[in-house]
């Protein structure tokens, strides 16, 4: 348990009305294991884009699954339980105390990874995203990686759609600058 100073940070879990999805995993089976298998990679991509740190992303996702499991009977009836996991994972990643705690809880389960780690293109994009202010980065990740609509992001963030559009607009401009500054821009143009 980690308490933080900011009252905004303590709202850990989204209300049960949350109903957005994680791209591609909306209709998985009811079992936690099946859900985990389907949702893990999309969530990792979202959290890696959000944190630019593969270990942090993995710990945050794993922590969110750990919290989901005791309440799985309830979560499974949500339209899109992966949205709940994503919100919790982003909250974990956002607070250094939660990160520390998650890292400690899940460290023993880290194995030496058999995948090759993020490709250079992914690394470059995540690092460029990391230079963005929190709100803009969050909006970009939700829109471009999690595939949420502007309305859904506005609902989730408690902001007006105009505000979300502004975050996206400014975020894209900043991202373009960051990508060209890094000299490693463009993945496929």
């Amino acid at each position, binding site marked *: 348990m980690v308490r933080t100073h900011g009252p905004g940070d303590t709202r850990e879990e989204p209300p049960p009305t949350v109903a957005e999805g994680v*791209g591609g995993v909306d209709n998985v089976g009811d079992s936690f294991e099946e859900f985990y298998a389907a949702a893990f990679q999309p969530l990792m991509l979202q959290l890696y884009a959000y944190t630019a740190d593969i270990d942090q992303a993995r710990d945050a996702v794993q922590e969110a699954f750990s919290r989901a499991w005791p309440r799985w009977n309830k979560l499974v009836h949500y339209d899109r339980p992966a949205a709940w996991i994503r919100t919790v994972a982003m909250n974990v990643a956002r607070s250094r105390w939660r990160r520390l705690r998650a890292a400690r809880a899940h460290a023993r389960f880290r194995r030496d990874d058999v995948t090759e780690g993020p490709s250079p293109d992914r690394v470059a994009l995540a690092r460029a995203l990391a230079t963005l202010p929190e709100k803009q980065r969050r909006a970009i990740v939700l829109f471009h990686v999690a595939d949420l609509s502007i309305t859904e992001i506005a609902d989730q963030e408690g902001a007006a759609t105009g505000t979300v559009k502004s975050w996206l607009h400014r975020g894209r401009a900043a991202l373009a600058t960051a990508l060209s500054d890094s000299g490693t821009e463009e*993945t496929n143009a």
Partner: protein
Amino acid sequence: MPENDNTPNFDELFTAYTSGGPLAAPVGAAAAQHVARRRRTTRLVAAGVLAVAVLAATPAIASTWTDQNPPALPANTPTPTLTTPAPSNSPTPSTSPTPSATPSTPPPDGLIGKAELGNATLELPAWPEYLKEHCPAGRVTFSDGTAQLAPSSELRITISDVVHTDLDRDGAKETVALINCSGIEMGESRVLAFDRDTSDSIETIGLVTGHTGDIAWIRGIRATGTAVEVQVMDAAGEGVVDGFAQSQWRTYSWSGKGFVQSGGPSAFPPNPRVTDLSISGDDVQLVPDGADTASGTLSLTVSNQGPQRATDPYLTVVLPTEVTVTSLPTKCETSKSSYGTRYRCWLPALAAGADSVVDFSLSAPQSIFDGAQPGQWTAKIVWGFTGTETGDGEGWPYPEPDGAEDDNSANGNLLLAP
């Protein structure tokens, strides 16, 4: 997604990002379940101990005790009978002056045992805002020492300790309880005082103290004379290693109107294990030194901006697998992972205001510079926990001051010198 920018095509960029192969091997649903199960077990066994944490790096607000700690009596609580003078024949602790007025009725016996308190309906003051939707307040019925807002609620209130002391110096003891409302993620501990009214009902005197000022958690209580001593912590929880948190005993007394701190320190000194470390380094130019190899030096500058001397700076450097290090700092461990070779090094103590340069002599096959992307080094500096006797937690980072962790990592390119 309309994209009118003349710069990168974001749709393509992100499609490429999301459509590649797996990013990392799944840790596994079983591992997530294991952690959750362990937490539930821990909570069942030791709900009062499993606690929460925060680093109170902010300055203590010692002068606000009386302002912030009025006895927060709920509106519908009957007025406590605390001001009833004591009869002269009642047992009186030697430290407490006995009022000379001696009414014939003895004061109500406010000594309530832990079992009775844990199965009673108690009037609890409101919890802080962030816990209001998780923790019951007002008239709360306890069962076996706990209470919850709903059976499915993750957070629950637990009465973890009960002591008895004559707070109002009436010759009869009252009851002081350490109570917390906590769950996996967050929680709050507080000390409340209870008495009985003339009809033998339990009534709440008020809040002795909670997480006020620099108090991040309350670990214990003990009775002393006509006061209660409260053991307060400046940090707690799973993110905090053993021995990091500071604790103090602070004494609180009933003033007739509310509880005030009457003894013990009013603030924590700066935590001796919190200091602001930073690291920086430049791109490394590797110079061809043979037919196929190139070499160069990665120079990392580690600084301590204070305020404490960091006894055990712990440096982690990750280099591409193909790069070999021909000269390392003395106390380093090497491990391989899929994304490179990791060097974890204990550095000599670093005084506040001091910096030091750590050199890694590198050698690499020139072929690694053929790719489109330059190789990268990444480095991170923390003040590391040296571990328990069994080695548990070795290298675990002590927290940085609030907002000071951004400069704890650095990265750069490995380039072939032209």
